[in-house]
């Protein structure tokens, strides 16, 4: 036994030039290159993560404050005669303002806050929308006249900004709207619990407001506009895109014409979105005379923009279905269409859905084409009254609303722009998560 091992060992020696335990130069170099590459990769990912974190931190730190809002609680006695007088006057809200002013002075007296400001000056701490809100309540609840109703009026954006740390006393020296004296008053009221800050529902469900009332501005109506646009995109882009890709992928003869179409679809995916905007302006508004600023038109433009994305992703997922499935179906006498609709399409479904949702998410965040069809700058102050109006009455969209706010001078709008971005990102995240879940659910193995 030992003999055998002794004789075999020397026999194998000549073939072995070097010990495996020593690493030669070449291998060392290769290993070093590999290690270097790993570090480059980690570095690249690190930079990416850094920027992502920086972006999220800046968005959250700028935008989260939009989700809280300071308000002042005032019990307003609704006196019949006063309200009648107000309704008779020409500028109705000015009388309501007087009512609130009187209540505010009363409130300060009982709170023991001394001030020499008159009612008009004092009202600077409140939103200029407060009288309107009071009037709306009165008109909606005529039964409440004669009673004292506790109201939570919004404070003005500067008071709100003061509590959020955006407005400083030093900065107010330059400001003709608000003095330090105002801040002394709200500080005292805050201590007593009359000025409180809570979640800003109006920001989420409200509509945009004029330049002087940023505290009232909300993204709700724009959200509805975006919703109707997405509905149009989904209902048009998905069937058209899927039908086009199935035809191109499964039925179309491979010739020069289909090659040209194919190349052009890929090119369309890279066309700047503003080009689609101007196309929409020319085709849908100037030629087809559809209403301006309508979500229907916005949806049509975004459909054009989303189609290439959906077609490309659908074709990719159709291509990824193994040919053996098609063979199997054809082999037992299924027609081409049966093989596609019964077997290929279900298998391609996860890819198609993912592509569609990603296309929709892209469309949801698109601003440039909306500029050209008048969906930016238009301030819809009310929710559409019905589904039909939802499609046709002028409205805005979330990204357009954000763009609009970012343009305005008041820093309170700027804060809302960031807040709007947070909401938009939440929507996009939700859609992407839905895409992932759908892909998981529909994925089948073969």
């Amino acid at each position, binding site marked *: 036994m030992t003999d055998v091992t002794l004789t075999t060992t020397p026999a194998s020696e000549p073939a072995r030039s070097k010990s495996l335990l020593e690493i030669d130069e070449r291998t060392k170099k290769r290993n070093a290159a590999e290690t270097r590459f790993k570090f480059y990769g980690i570095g690249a990912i690190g930079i990416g993560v850094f920027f992502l974190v920086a972006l999220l931190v800046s968005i959250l730190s700028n935008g989260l404050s939009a989700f809280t809002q300071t308000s002042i609680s005032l019990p307003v006695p609704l006196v019949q005669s006063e309200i009648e007088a107000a309704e008779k006057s020409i500028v109705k809200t000015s009388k309501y303002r007087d009512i609130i002013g009187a209540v505010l002075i009363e409130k300060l007296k009982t709170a023991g806050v001394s001030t020499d400001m008159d009612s008009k000056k004092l009202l600077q701490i409140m939103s200029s929308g407060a009288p309107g809100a009071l009037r709306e309540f009165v008109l909606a609840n005529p039964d409440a006249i004669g009673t004292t109703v506790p109201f939570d009026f919004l404070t003005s954006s500067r008071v709100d900004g003061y509590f959020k740390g955006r407005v400083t006393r030093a900065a107010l020296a330059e400001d003709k709207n608000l003095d330090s004296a105002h801040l002394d008053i709200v500080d005292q009221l805050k201590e007593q619990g009359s000025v409180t800050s809570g979640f800003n529902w109006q920001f989420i469900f409200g509509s945009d407001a004029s330049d002087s009332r940023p505290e009232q501005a909300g993204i709700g109506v724009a959200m509805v506009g975006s919703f109707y646009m997405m509905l149009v995109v989904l209902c048009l882009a998905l069937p058209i895109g899927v039908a086009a890709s199935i035809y191109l992928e499964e039925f179309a*003869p*491979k010739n020069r014409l289909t090659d040209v179409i194919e190349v052009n679809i890929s090119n369309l995916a890279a066309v700047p979105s503003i080009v689609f905007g101007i196309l929409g302006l020319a085709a849908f508004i100037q030629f087809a005379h559809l209403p301006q600023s309508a979500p229907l038109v916005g949806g049509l433009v975004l459909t054009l923009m989303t189609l290439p994305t959906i077609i490309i992703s659908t074709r990719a997922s159709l291509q990824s279905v*193994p040919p*053996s*499935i*098609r*063979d*199997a*179906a*054809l*082999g*037992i*006498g*299924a*027609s081409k269409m*049966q093989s596609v609709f*019964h*077997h290929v399409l279900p*298998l391609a479904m996860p890819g198609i859905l993912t592509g569609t949702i990603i296309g929709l998410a892209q469309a949801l965040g698109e601003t440039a084409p909306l500029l050209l069809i008048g969906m930016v700058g238009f301030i819809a102050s009310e929710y559409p009254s019905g589904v039909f109006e939802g499609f046709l009455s002028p409205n805005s969209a979330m990204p357009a609303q954000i763009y609009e706010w970012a343009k305005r001078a008041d820093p309170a709008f700027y804060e809302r722009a960031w807040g709007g971005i947070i909401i938009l990102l939440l929507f996009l995240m939700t859609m992407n998560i839905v895409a992932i879940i759908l892909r998981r659910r529909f994925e*089948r*193995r*073969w």
Partner: protein
Amino acid sequence: MSEVSGAIRTADEFEPNKATAMENTKISADKVQVYYGDTHAIKDVSINIRAQTVTAFIGPSGCGKSTFLRCLNRMNDTIDICRVEGRIAIDDEDIYDPKVDPVQLRAKVGMVFQKPNPFPKSIYDNVSYGPRIHGLVRRKSELDDIVASSLQKAGLWEEVKDRLDSPGTGLSGGQQQRLCIARAIAVSPEVILMDEPCSALDPIATAKVEELIDELRENYTIVIVTHSMQQAARVSQRTAFFHLGNLVEVGDTQDIFTNPRDKRTQDYITGRFG
């Protein structure tokens, strides 16, 4: 006068042959040429394939045996650049006639592929799909019967009868291939084409499929492409040897393997090339 007698003689000469050929020839191919673009893949192939017989196509890789097989149910139609010339007739009907719809043809000529390719659906749905799209059944119970009998004929019934709802893709490779055979049988074809049906299977599964092929011969005309000469010898009664797109030799399997006429056939079956 001489012309007439000549004509008569010719008729006399061919009549008996034709009669026997007609009797059990299921598929006849005459001077078939297949081109892939500029490549001449099948050259001048003429062959008669007998009914209720297993015919094996053997030959080295790339010799065109699979291509020729796929001509028999016009699966080559799905390849754009593929062009078929010549005449292929099943029951004396030209299958490349413009009036023939390949969908109807493929119901008559079923196919089993190299890699088991069940649909990613339940076993039941796999088998019932064919009868359903061809409208062979009116009631669910009829469909149940077809599924059961097809699976029985494919020798799979005992193994799967309790889990017809489980996915066909969850079966083992051999079971999947028998499922594919059951799926092909379910539309009651007359011819079954098999393209290397056992090349992805282990020897035990292969034995089962071969046994099945032998049983199916009673009711179906079977054409099988195989790389394994042992398999050809085991399952087939007739063998055709293809080489470089030519049909070199066709005859009874026994003759081909024991007494090949052509040198190329001899070289191939003795393992000298291929």
